[in-house]
């Protein structure tokens, strides 16, 4: 579903990603772990289509097509969803209206009819109760005044509503207490389906207790320095990231 090949990027002239290779197939869950500054959020933003990142080398294919050529809204319509680490607050834009507009845009792209306000409300309320969200948050402005945990739930709500093929969760566990984490993880796990792929980007292993990855990759200094199965996450949790430094310097993978 997603093929990242030798991806290099620059931000403000500074090289951040220095040759990423990653292959994600439908039905798989991948975790990308790494310390602060390793390039995790850059990778997320490049995949989502943020314009400030310059790709200097390499390519990204999504369902066999050149992802980097697509505008952010096209990526979303084609089935990519990024749950952001810091979802923005949008004063004056009603959350319910925002969600319905997004849903209908994506439905139209798939050749489906618009969903009307009434049916939408029924649908969204079910999704909200699944992730323990107060329906009152529909009437508020998008993320405005939401707590960190509420913002993350609002991201997961969008994911379950928009039903993407490829979901990228960027530090979704940060700011969540353990109960909220379990609820969010359960929401994501409902999405583990043979035709869907999930990429979990995280600093800590904690989230992976609840969303079990098939593959774990360690990102360090803009490169994936080690890949393995879920046991790698435990190893990182125990030994920290420092031991990888040597591995990276030795060029070992």
């Amino acid at each position, binding site marked *: 579903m997603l093929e990242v090949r030798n991806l290099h990027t620059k931000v403000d002239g500074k090289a951040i990603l220095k040759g990423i290779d990653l292959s994600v197939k439908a039905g798989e869950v991948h975790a990308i772990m790494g310390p602060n500054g390793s390039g995790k959020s850059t990778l997320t933003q490049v995949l989502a*289509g943020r314009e400030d990142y310059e790709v200097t080398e390499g390519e990204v294919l999504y369902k066999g097509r050149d992802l980097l050529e697509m505008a*952010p809204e096209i990526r*979303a319509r084609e089935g990519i969803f990024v749950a952001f680490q810091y979802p923005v607050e*949008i004063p*004056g834009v009603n959350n319910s209206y925002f969600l319905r507009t997004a849903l209908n*845009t994506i439905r139209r792209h798939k050749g489906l009819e618009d969903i009307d306000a009434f049916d939408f409300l029924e649908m969204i309320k079910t999704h909200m109760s699944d992730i323990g969200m107060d329906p009152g948050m529909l009437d508020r402005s998008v993320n405005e005044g939401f707590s960190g945990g509420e913002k993350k739930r609002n991201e997961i709500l969008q994911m379950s509503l928009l039903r993407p093929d490829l979901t990228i969760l960027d530090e979704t566990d940060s700011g969540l207490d353990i109960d909220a984490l379990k609820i969010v993880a359960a929401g994501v796990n409902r999405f583990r389906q043979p035709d869907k792929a999930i990429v979990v980007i995280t600093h800590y292993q904690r989230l992976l207790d609840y969303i079990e990855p098939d593959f774990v990759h360690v990102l360090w200094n803009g490169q994936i320095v080690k890949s393995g199965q879920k046991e790698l996450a435990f190893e990182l949790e125990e030994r920290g990231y420092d031991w990888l430094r040597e591995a990276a310097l030795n060029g070992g993978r």
Partner: protein
Amino acid sequence: MVEGSSVEWGALIMLESGRQPLSLLGAYESVKKERWTRSPSWLSAVREEGRALFEKMGLPTRRQEEWKYTDVSALGRQEFSAPFPMHSAGRPLEESDLSRLLLSEDISPLRLVFVDGFYSHSLSRTGKFPDGVETGDLGSLLKEDHSMVEKHLASYAKPDENSFVALNSAFIEDGGWVYIPDGVRLTVPVHLVYLSTNGVGSHPRNVVVVGNGAAVTVIEEYIGDAGAVYFSNPVTEIRMGDGAEVEHYKIQRESEDAFHIAMIEVKQGEGSRFVSHNLGFGGRLTRNNIHSYLTGPGSSCMFNGLFMIGGTQHVDNHTLIHHGAPDCRSEEVYHGILDGRARGVFNGKIYVEREAQRTDSRQTSRSLMLSTDAAVDAKPQLEIFADDVKCTHGATVGQIDRDSLYYMRSRGISMDEARRMLTRGFARQITDRVKLDSLRQGLEQELTNKL
């Protein structure tokens, strides 16, 4: 003066009155001779004072601090005919002329309509109210010996401080009269509509008197046909007793070729609350002056403002909140949306007198620039003479937030749609404060149409 109820009004579009257009004050003598011979002497004195002051002051120039960003010299070059009640020329205005121009027909069952400043019986919807409530046209009351009108008219607006108030005073003839006695809370909003026709300069004078513990909602809506060139120069005086509450809406949807200069002067009693919603969309050149004097302890006011302009439109909002007594609160939030080569001005003055201790005042102005050719001058102006006060102010000018745009696009929403949603969202932060449902919906529709 308007004679009786059988007056019919001229055609809306490109009215040709047959009279020669005159300079701003030029019609004074002839109108005086034709219509004002039986006016009470106190009123004649008010007009005479206005005329003399305007003659002395003339139109303001940009050399004056208060007019630094707004050039009204075009008004002096333009010629407008004097307002007059029409007996001839064209067909009478019909309900349909009004309904296609109004923001919403359902704002209130009580609607007083003024055409070129003169009351129209046929277009108005009135009602009888108990408890001594009066809502009607000043014009007919000026023919009677009405002591309350005499007491309050021209008692709050200051013709010596503002040329346009002086000009308005010179031509006081008609406008809205709203009188709410002590303790009465009028639940029906008073909808005042001012429709201007091509070529006319009009000077409506409105007086709103709200007694102790009384409450009222007043909506002033200014409209005109697209393409019509005219000058509307209204002055509204509002006197609020102790504990009175007024919700005031000013909706400016003039023709985009119109000149609109308005003064709203409010005097608030102890513990009273005044809320102003200043919502502007039309006009070639617009200047709003909204002044509230908090003269009684514990009184408060809130100024909400929204304007949305494009092309070469110019809107200047000058507000003054005068804290003249202790323990008063004021809050002011103005949002401007500017496209094309539009120019906006926000000048928000907060004046705190020595005795106005424990004043709590907050002011924010935000401008959203949709085009790089638009410009705005935002100027907070704080003059504080008390030592125990809390005054904050902030002004921002910016474009559509990139992060919000990116976030919305990452959910599949197109760039254009996201921009529209964000612009509407910016406006909604003001329109959400509108309490009247029909009015708020009308405004949201207007915003949708404009984007």
